[in-house]
């Protein structure tokens, strides 16, 4: 892998660190498996790109993209909480609807941002080559957001949100309004994912109606890889592991696609993704079984 493609991989890994944080919020904190992210990632990109193209300030456009994502999360939460639609199904409905909405927002399947200003424009003349400047900018953004999220989860409000995911009845008995926390959590999660979409569109110079496909798998992969490698209960470490997991996942994919002896090409991406996520899920289980077997063997040896 060349330095250039490594920096590119790092940049995308960092951006998807935001997706991983969003997925961590829904899957792990709220125990609400949410597939809306496939749509809200694109929505963030589409809204931001459409606004930038129409001449709006890129920072304001990015903010609008985030808010649009948050609204998508609220819709999913509403379908689940108000009408008792299964969370997974509710999120699939929103995701499906978003596909059309994204096309409408952009007006066509693909919007290019080659000549338009982006959030990166103010930093372009500072002398650092784009190849380094882009991952640095994205990295600072993602780490700042990560720290804020970790701090948020340690506040009374954040703690209440975690309690809702861990034990609803206990949360209620302690005066926590469950529904409100689910709404807030899904809004926050999809807002983060939409921010990732907005940054992706601006660093790569386009928004595309199909760019969100598989976002959920990538996010989940990052969370699981991170959890497997850095298991910690410290909030900051957990969020950090989401980002690290996302980068490592990207590097693994990049390595698999680039290694000639494996014979993969770019169209094999989804199979590699599935294999990697499967491996990350299976390994902790196998390790546990192996350890149990060893312990049993030791115990038997002691008796003999």
């Amino acid at each position: 892998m060349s330095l250039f493609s490594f920096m590119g991989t790092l940049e995308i890994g960092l951006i998807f660190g935001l997706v991983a944080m969003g997925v961590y919020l829904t899957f792990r904190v709220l125990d609400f498996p949410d597939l809306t992210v496939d749509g809200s990632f694109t929505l963030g990109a589409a809204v931001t790109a459409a606004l930038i193209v129409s001449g709006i300030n890129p920072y304001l456009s990015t903010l609008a993209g985030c808010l649009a994502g948050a609204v998508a999360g609220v819709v999913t939460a509403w379908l689940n909480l108000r009408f008792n639609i299964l969370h997974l199904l509710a999120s699939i409905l929103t995701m499906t609807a978003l596909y059309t909405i994204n096309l409408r927002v952009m007006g066509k399947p693909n919007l290019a941002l080659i000549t338009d200003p982006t959030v990166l424009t103010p930093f372009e003349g500072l002398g650092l080559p784009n190849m380094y400047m882009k991952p640095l900018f994205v990295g600072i953004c993602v780490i700042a957001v990560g720290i804020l999220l970790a701090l948020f989860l340690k506040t009374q409000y954040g703690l209440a949100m975690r309690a809702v995911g861990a034990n609803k009845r206990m949360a209620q008995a302690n005066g926590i309004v469950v529904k409100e926390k689910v709404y807030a959590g899904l809004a926050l999660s999809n807002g983060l994912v939409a921010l990732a979409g907005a940054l992706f569109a601006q660093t790569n110079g386009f928004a595309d109606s199909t760019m969100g496909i598989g976002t959920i798998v990538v996010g989940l992969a990052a969370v699981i890889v991170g959890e497997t490698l850095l298991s910690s209960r410290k909030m900051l470490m957990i969020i950090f592991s989401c980002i690290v997991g996302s980068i490592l996942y990207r590097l693994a994919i990049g390595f698999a696609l680039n290694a000639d002896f494996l014979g993969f090409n770019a169209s094999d991406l989804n199979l590699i993704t599935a294999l990697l996520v499967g491996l990350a899920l299976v390994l902790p289980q196998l390790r546990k079984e192996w350890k149990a077997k060893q312990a049993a063997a030791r115990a038997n040896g002691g008796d003999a």
Partner: protein
Amino acid sequence: MIRCEQLRVTFNAGLPTEKKALRGVNLEIPQGEFVTVIGSNGAGKSTLLNAVAGDIPASGGKILFGDKDVTKIPATGRTKEVARVFQDPLAGTCATMTVEENMALAYGRGSRGKLSFALNDNLRKIFREQLSRLNLGLENRLDAEMGLLSGGQRQSVSLLMSALQPSSILLLDEHTAALDPKTAALIMDISAQIIAEKQLTVMMVTHSMRQALDFGSRTLMLHEGKIVFDLSGEDRSNYEVSDLLELFAKARGGDEALDDDKLLLGS
């Protein structure tokens, strides 16, 4: 303090599975009274407690705390007045969160939703002090995950959590039933301490006739959704477990044999 007027709760109303769990309960518990509630399975004990807590909406009648009509207020809105401990030791705490985080949740009861940090050294000191009352060594395990504690330890922490915030009503739903006798005794001991200290109004559901007579100053017996017996004062102090068992048999229809081990053992 707690008043129920013609309180009715019906599950699955209008369906073939309709069940009238409470059929017009009238009850007045003055401030600071400790009431034990007994009755066979399905008598409506837990339903009564859940209705007072707000977990189950009333189908008819009224529930009042003092002069305040709380019938329409959901459980989360009643937590300023009501604290509770569940039967299942796992139900009262979050397994994936630490001891101190669980306690911080209970500490925030009634003042929810702030963006200030949930934990600080001052709070940890309070939690440590409280935990040391248990003599279980938990004061040194503030950052242990709740799921790593035994059922008895978790129930002990739940009990402390219920008393972290000032409340006037404590609802105990067979909170020692799932514990071994030694731990159960410890928990009852601490419950009694806390109740006396804070002069709480208490409703305690129990299957143990012994507990029902030994604790509190009044005993209610429920049968098929109604209060069939209300025992207090001198009457109650003259009662023995065997007398209660006789009442039970009577409520069940006289000649019906007692088949519930717990009732026979009366422990």
